[in-house]
């Protein structure tokens, strides 16, 4: 309904022309598929068409994800280091009981497979702090980007940029900065501090693991929150201003409650991502010092893949355990989004 001059509308822009040309092969392809699909629709009826649309995706998915998941489960009840299932002896729940063999579950040291339990505890620590600070910083950044500032597009993009980098590159970049002779230590020494060997200190290592993963992914969550913030009707703020409400109160009483659905999505997504953490931290800290930043996925990777005796069975058992945890998180997410839709 915005009033535009006819000239502007009638002449296709360069972009539109480009799109028209670029769409040409697509049009041919999709056009060719029209006839068979029409025939299918006539035979099956509209009611069965969704299955047709789902079929290719489900087929790929079944072959390359579901079948491996099933094989993975089969691995977890067999032993040895053979690759083919028919050559692997059945051992029942032995791999699981090996993982669970603990004096006390609170003390990894008392477990047969101490690294598995360390991995779990490290992951819990990581997830707790990473998610908390991720949400905090995404929220602060989104709030700031939601203000009337010039160059907002640029700043928004700047915070998003690291999302596009591969985990390996992210880790390399930061490792390069944090090395003993890296630029950060140069900065520290130049202002009179001692060099810090970041990757030798468990706390620093965990700190940087958390920091770097937040650095890399914050932009994505910020955008989700920003979308939520911009969806809050401005009249609410104006009404609050008319009432003379303090800014802090506006934040707690208007912004936060209305942002809550987006915040929940962010928390759940960040949570799932954090549980899966692997490549970034693996390249950055190598899981060290000792096992201080060795997380559950790294444990699975090392056990099943990187060790000389590739212990597929134990790794598979651990991954099934992880899968169950993730599935529970999924259900939580579903419940959360369900409630969001209802509310």
């Amino acid at each position, binding site marked *: 309904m915005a009033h535009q001059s006819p000239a502007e509308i009638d002449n296709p822009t360069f972009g539109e022309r480009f799109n028209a040309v670029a769409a040409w092969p697509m049009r041919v392809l999709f056009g060719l598929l029209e006839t068979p699909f029409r025939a299918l629709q006539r035979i099956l009826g509209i*009611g069965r068409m*969704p299955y047709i649309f789902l079929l290719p995706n489900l087929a790929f998915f079944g072959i390359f*994800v579901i079948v491996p998941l099933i094989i993975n489960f089969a691995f977890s009840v067999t032993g040895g280091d053979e690759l083919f299932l028919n050559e692997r002896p059945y051992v029942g729940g032995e791999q699981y009981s090996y993982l669970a063999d603990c004096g006390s579950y609170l003390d990894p040291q008392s477990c047969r497979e101490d690294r598995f339990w360390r991995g779990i505890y490290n992951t819990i620590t990581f997830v707790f702090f990473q998610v908390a600070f991720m949400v905090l910083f995404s929220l602060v*950044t989104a709030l700031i980007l939601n203000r009337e500032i010039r160059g907002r597009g640029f700043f928004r993009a700047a915070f998003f940029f690291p999302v596009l*980098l591969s985990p390996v590159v992210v880790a390399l970049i930061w490792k390069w900065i944090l090395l003993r002779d890296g630029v950060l230590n140069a900065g520290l020494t130049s202002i009179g501090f001692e060099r810090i060997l970041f990757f030798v200190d468990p706390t620093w290592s965990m700190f940087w693991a958390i920091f770097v993963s937040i650095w890399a992914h914050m932009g994505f969550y910020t955008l*989700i929150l920003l979308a939520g913030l911009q969806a809050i009707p401005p009249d609410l703020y104006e009404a609050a201003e008319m009432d003379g409400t303090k*800014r802090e109160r506006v934040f707690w009483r208007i912004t936060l409650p209305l942002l809550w659905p987006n915040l929940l999505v962010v928390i759940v997504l960040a949570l799932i991502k954090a549980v899966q953490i692997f490549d970034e931290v693996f390249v950055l800290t190598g899981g060290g010092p000792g096992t201080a930043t060795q997380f559950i996925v790294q444990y699975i990777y090392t056990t*099943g893949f990187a060790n000389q005796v590739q212990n597929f069975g134990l790794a598979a058992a651990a991954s099934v355990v992880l899968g169950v945890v993730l599935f529970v998180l999924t259900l939580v997410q579903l419940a959360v989004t369900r409630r969001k839709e209802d509310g």
Partner: protein
Amino acid sequence: MADAQTASGRSIAGLLTARRGGASWHWTDVFTYVYLAFGVCLMFGPVLWLALSSFKTPAGLLEFPPTLLPLGQIEVEVDGHDKPLPLYKVTMEDGTVRELAQIRRIGIIAQMVDPNDPETSIRVPIASREPIREFRVAWENYTKPLERFNFLTYLNNSVIVTVVATLITLLINSMAAFGLAIYEFKGRNAVMLFVIGTLMIPITIILVPAYLVVTQLNMVNTLWAVILPGAATPTGVFLLRQYMLTLPRDLIEAARMDKASEWAIYWRIVLPLSLPAIAVLAIFSVMWRWNDFLWPLVVLNRSEVYTLQIGLNAFQGELDVQWHYVLAMTVVTLIPVALVFAFLQRFITTGIASTGMK
């Protein structure tokens, strides 16, 4: 990056004027600008530092404290010597400082010569000399590995994998999303639960079984082995479906009244209208495929099918990490990312915001 420069220039001007509704300065205004300035440095700084470092010589990289710009030692031609000699600034015993070229070093004594007086050699303790350096870009960090490897083949493979995989992903994911968003049918919730449930499975966990499947399909050492397994992304289906749910149902019904077949509704109505979400998925897919490392490493072991990520990492040996190559090759793989970012940044960010996990 030029774009970023000008944009930040603009925004610096904006810093002074952009406050909420011309009211007086509030602490949050100050905080905003400090935060943003710090944020921009934090986000771009490390990457720029990486790029700068990648132009340094191995020796330059080892230096502590590091220099900002890549520097190289100046070498001079001296009569009577076949090779150019490195130039040093030497503090003599009497406290004077001279520029001398080093002929050789024996133990802790360097044998040096004044380039202007090539006949007399001077013996100097090595502790009292300091190399003289100038700005020099170590292009060889880039050219050497790229010569050593079949760069064009790898690039070609990477591009094919990225493009074909992204097209397949977009096609089958959007079809599935269409099916899940537009229709009510038996089993829909089960499929959705499935999709979301597998959203969380990292490939690392099923690396070996997935490899088994690929070998059984005889796809090892073909690009299909890299393209197909990741094509049916739950993330993509989820994202597109969420977006398609926001399309007015009237449009679909209008199309049905217009005698459109279901396929035509999919590709002539829903697909064009889901373009923002499709673009977001396309960008993510391109990034995933371009950055993919672990999986190609497992399924591709013939150099004619290597992707760039494998090829460029091939200089990571057993015992030696050659940082100057690692950094340079990292920058090479970053170039497309930077281009995508520079050209599409507005599009990406608004696209994600508009799909915004509604």
